[in-house]
């Protein structure tokens, strides 16, 4: 029996780590999606942002984020206290055997799985503020976001804090990860303003097409793939028949929701614009995935498809509406992760009998309010101290040159000529 307990501990830990690796790979998905949807002159900078935000998230979460989100001794349901820096100690064999199945995965595998989620939330921000924000202003925000803002609301739900006690349900993070990331982005975009040239003097929209649709499509597929780790891993356990079946259902539902999102977004775009906009189909896939993330376990596959499809319709209208409100979001991150994240939280009530609309709305409101206020203050302080936006001239030349000093495609003819 002990051997079986040890083996299932090993299996669940292995599953946890490997699904974490899938989520880590979503950083590549965001990088490619964003690189595809910005202009060529801003590609190297967005890639720099993506790899550096991942590193910042890992370090800040190790130093303080994880301790805040999962405190050993929380001060109260709203204030977790500072739990301290991550150590190397883990469960001993004796502890695991004595727990009688309560302790079924490695403590550090939990850190690993959680840290890639923080990075995902931060990745959401980078796309929305692309092409005009200063690199280091963004990274300073990443420090506060991944070290404090995200872990606080993460504690309220997954750390066992106030929202959890309220009965708020969020399986893999439509709210804790996606709405949180999108809300931080929303606050940033409000202070940052639109890209120069996005709106004509008469107020009409002048679209700024992305440079590379193949990259954007590759990024979407990578995110879709990573999402199996995101939702599938959030079941946290796989080592018995019931849990293995649950994981399989989560995989199937996650996949179906994405498919529903694509088709719904394509049809909506076709009906509204007369053309089948690829970028909307890509956003539709992500919208379907975000929509199902709050509850991928209790819907049937058909219901999951419908939940994803509603997300796909919502995202198209959200993108158009935000554009009209002059909230310039080059990749549609606020629509995909924020608007559809809210839908995902509400959709929990369609299939999970333990959920209540009041608890879902409360969780949604609290996550939004906290993240919005904390982010707005943080962005504002950064804006006052070092500024958050590059100069008009730098924006025209492209932030690749002004921030990174290099071009993504130096051997092609770009806005600066071939340069050779």
């Amino acid at each position, binding site marked *: 029996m002990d051997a079986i307990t040890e083996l299932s501990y090993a299996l669940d830990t292995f599953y946890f780590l490997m699904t974490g690796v899938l989520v880590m790979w979503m950083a590549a998905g965001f990088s490619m999606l964003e690189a595809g949807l910005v202009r060529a002159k801003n590609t190297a900078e967005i890639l720099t942002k993506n790899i550096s935000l991942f590193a910042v998230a890992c370090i800040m979460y190790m130093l303080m984020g994880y301790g805040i989100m999962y405190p050993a001794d929380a001060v109260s349901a709203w204030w977790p206290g500072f739990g301290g820096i991550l150590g190397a100690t883990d469960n001993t064999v004796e502890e695991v055997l004595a727990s009688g199945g309560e302790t079924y995965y490695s403590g550090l595998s939990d850190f690993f799985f959680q840290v890639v989620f923080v990075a995902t939330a931060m990745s959401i921000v980078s796309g929305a503020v692309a092409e005009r924000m200063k690199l280091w202003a963004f990274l300073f925000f990443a420090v506060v976001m991944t070290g404090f803002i995200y872990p606080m609301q993460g504690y309220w739900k997954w750390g066992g804090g106030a929202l959890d006690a309220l009965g708020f349900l969020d399986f893999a993070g439509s709210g804790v990860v996606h709405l949180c990331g999108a809300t931080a982005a929303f606050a940033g975009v409000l202070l940052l303003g639109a890209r120069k040239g996005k709106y004509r003097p008469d107020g009409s929209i*002048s679209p700024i097409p992305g440079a590379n649709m193949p990259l954007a499509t590759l990024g979407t597929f990578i995110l879709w793939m990573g999402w199996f780790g995101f939702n599938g891993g959030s079941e946290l356990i796989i080592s018995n028949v019931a849990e293995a079946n649950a994981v399989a259902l989560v995989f199937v539902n996650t996949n179906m929701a994405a498919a529903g999102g694509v088709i719904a977004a394509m049809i909506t775009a076709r009906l509204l614009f007369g053309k089948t906009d690829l970028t909307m189909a890509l956003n539709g896939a992500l919208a379907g995935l975000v929509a199902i993330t709050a509850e991928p376990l209790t819907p049937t596959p058909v219901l999951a498809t419908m939940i994803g499809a509603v997300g796909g319709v919502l995202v198209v209208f959200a993108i*158009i509406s935000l554009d009209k409100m002059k909230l310039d979001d080059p990749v549609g991150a606020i629509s995909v992760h924020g608007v559809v994240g809210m839908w995902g939280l509400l959709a929990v009530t369609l299939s999970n009998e333990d959920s209540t609309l009041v608890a879902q709305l409360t969780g949604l409101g609290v996550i939004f309010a906290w993240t919005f206020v904390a982010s707005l203050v943080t962005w504002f302080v950064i804006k006052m101290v070092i500024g958050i936006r590059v100069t008009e001239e730098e924006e025209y030349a492209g932030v690749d040159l002004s921030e990174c000093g290099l071009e993504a495609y130096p051997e092609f003819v770009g806005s600066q000529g071939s340069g050779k």
Partner: protein
Amino acid sequence: MKLVTAIIKPFKLDDVREGLSEIGVQGITVTEVKGFGRQKGHTELYRGAEYVVDFLPKVKIEAAVAADMVDRVIEAISKAANTGKIGDGKIFVSSLEQTVRIRTGETGPDAL
């Protein structure tokens, strides 16, 4: 000697090249260019918002030919590049003062 410059629709390039080869034109220079004429630009759609592309992609062909060939060259280009729709392009003819073949130093019509 004359320099014939033609602006044509990009997808007609192969037809024009073949047409010119058939009448004995020895060489042409091709450049991808952008511009506008009576066709103006065209509108494209991105995430639901329309925008105007002011300059359309065209191909510019330059052929240096003997003066007595000019009419046949014009005819060959006109025939091959004609679709009957707006935007088919234009042909310009200008006189050419001198031609030099760099390898041999030949000049004038011999160098064409």
